[in-house]
């Protein structure tokens, strides 16, 4: 069944949705949306490096995303406002990445494939990398779930419970870098943050507990991946953006329903 490119694409999309859902919830709860953006944008620099050294994209992107995320974490609270710092880092990384790619002579690379993803070209190997990464991210977050949640709610509360919020922040940073590295093929660097944030935000109104929100976000993300790909096939639209469009429509729809039912109640 893996011979069919649509099957591979759908499985890849669902894999990314599963990794992005619980992580995306923390990104939303901790107001790290821009942080996700900065890490994702840095990935294009990783692409350029990988191509320069003629190695596969995944380790290069993972390394640069990790460095970016650690830099942001380290600089936080050291004299710059967070949004300014992220604005500088995110866009500089993207610009340097684009310039670096232009230096690569010989290979003609399809920049669009990295900016917006190339999910229809997912190979069996890509699929293994994506699902491997997704299982790793979900496993990491499940393992640290209670500690992450406590640290997100209140730093002092975490310390008093014998946890170290800084270590938990590192767990999220690592999970974010892995997610960026596996999602680049599926939605591209410009839309990775959308896969993190939109399903989680759409799930908010339906959930009464953090766990429920993560599960519903995973379902919304998977549904978006599936429906987005079908739509892309049907209407001949770009696949990555189509997935994000479906997620956005679900977000608006679920919010309207929530608003209606609150008004009716």
């Amino acid at each position, binding site marked *: 069944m893996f011979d069919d490119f649509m099957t591979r694409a759908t499985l890849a999309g669902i894999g990314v949705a599963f990794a992005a859902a619980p992580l995306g919830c923390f990104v*939303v*709860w*901790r*107001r790290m949306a821009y942080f996700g953006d900065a890490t994702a944008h840095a990935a294009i620099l990783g692409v350029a490096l990988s191509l320069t050294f003629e190695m596969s994209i995944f380790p290069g992107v993972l390394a640069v995303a990790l460095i970016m995320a650690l830099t942001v974490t380290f600089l936080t609270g050291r004299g710059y406002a967070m949004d300014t710092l992220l604005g500088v880092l995110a866009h500089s990384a993207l610009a340097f990445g684009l310039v670096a790619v232009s230096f690569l002579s010989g290979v003609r690379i399809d920049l669009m494939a990295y900016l917006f993803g190339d999910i229809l070209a997912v190979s069996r190997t890509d699929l293994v990398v994506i699902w491997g990464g997704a299982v790793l991210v979900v496993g990491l977050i499940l393992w640290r779930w*209670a500690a992450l*949640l*406590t640290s*997100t*709610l*209140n*730093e*002092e*509360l975490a*310390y*008093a*419970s014998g*946890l170290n919020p800084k270590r938990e922040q590192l767990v999220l940073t690592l999970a974010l870098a892995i997610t960026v590295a596996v999602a680049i093929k599926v939605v591209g660097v410009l839309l990775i943050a959308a896969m993190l944030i939109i399903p*989680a*935000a759409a799930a*908010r109104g339906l*959930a*009464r*507990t*953090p*766990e*429920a*929100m993560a599960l519903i976000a995973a379902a919304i993300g998977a549904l978006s991946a599936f429906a987005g790909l079908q739509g892309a096939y049907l209407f001949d639209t770009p696949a990555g953006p189509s997935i994000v469009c479906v997620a956005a429509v679900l977000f608006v729809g679920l919010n309207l329903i929530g608003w209606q039912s609150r008004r009716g109640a």
Partner: protein
Amino acid sequence: MSLISVNNLSVAYGANTVLRNVGLELEPGEIVTIVGPNGSGKTSLLRAIIGATAPASGVVSLKPGLKIGYVPQRLHIDQTLPITVERFMRLTERVKAAVCTDALRAAGVPDLLKRQMSQLSGGQFQRVLLARALINRPDVLLLDEATQGLDQPGSAAFYQQIEEVRNATGCAVLMISHDLHVVMSASDRVICLNGHVCCEGTPAVVASAPEYRALFGAGTGGALALYRHEHDHDHTHHNEAAE
């Protein structure tokens, strides 16, 4: 052995030393309140005790196996984070629903289990924080300005609750407050902090100490003047009784 023992503690943020040579002992079952003006290092002291801030020098030692129940100053739950009271109570301890209900009852809010945290009033919210801190039957309750955002009757009721909890469970209480007026009557011992320990002792002793008056006495007027009047009275009365 004391539950918490702080020796010669100094805490600095960069070049800014906020605490200098602070000492503190907390014995089982006692209620100790730390008072002090803004920026006096109250919160830094508490952060050093829970290990959130590394001391520049000095030692914080906790009795081995000490169970701490912590009530934070302000707990902001982001609007995007759905969480019921029940789920919040089980944040760090896996306990049965009955244990949650018992803790909520002890904190004076027995019927909130299924509610969303975001829908609670300020007073209910603080009591749920207290209930969560009680859930692992702590040896020590630490409270960091736990009545912020409550009005005076609300704070008074909250501190009364703390005293009831102490009487019922025998846990020691170490708390920070700026609510001098209400907090002192519920304390066994008061520590007046301003970068260092200015003075300490029973509420009556501290309230009449010149160091304390220098920090809080002048210019506060209103409720504090009234308070001081009451407390002078108390103090004299106490002395007369002693004589």
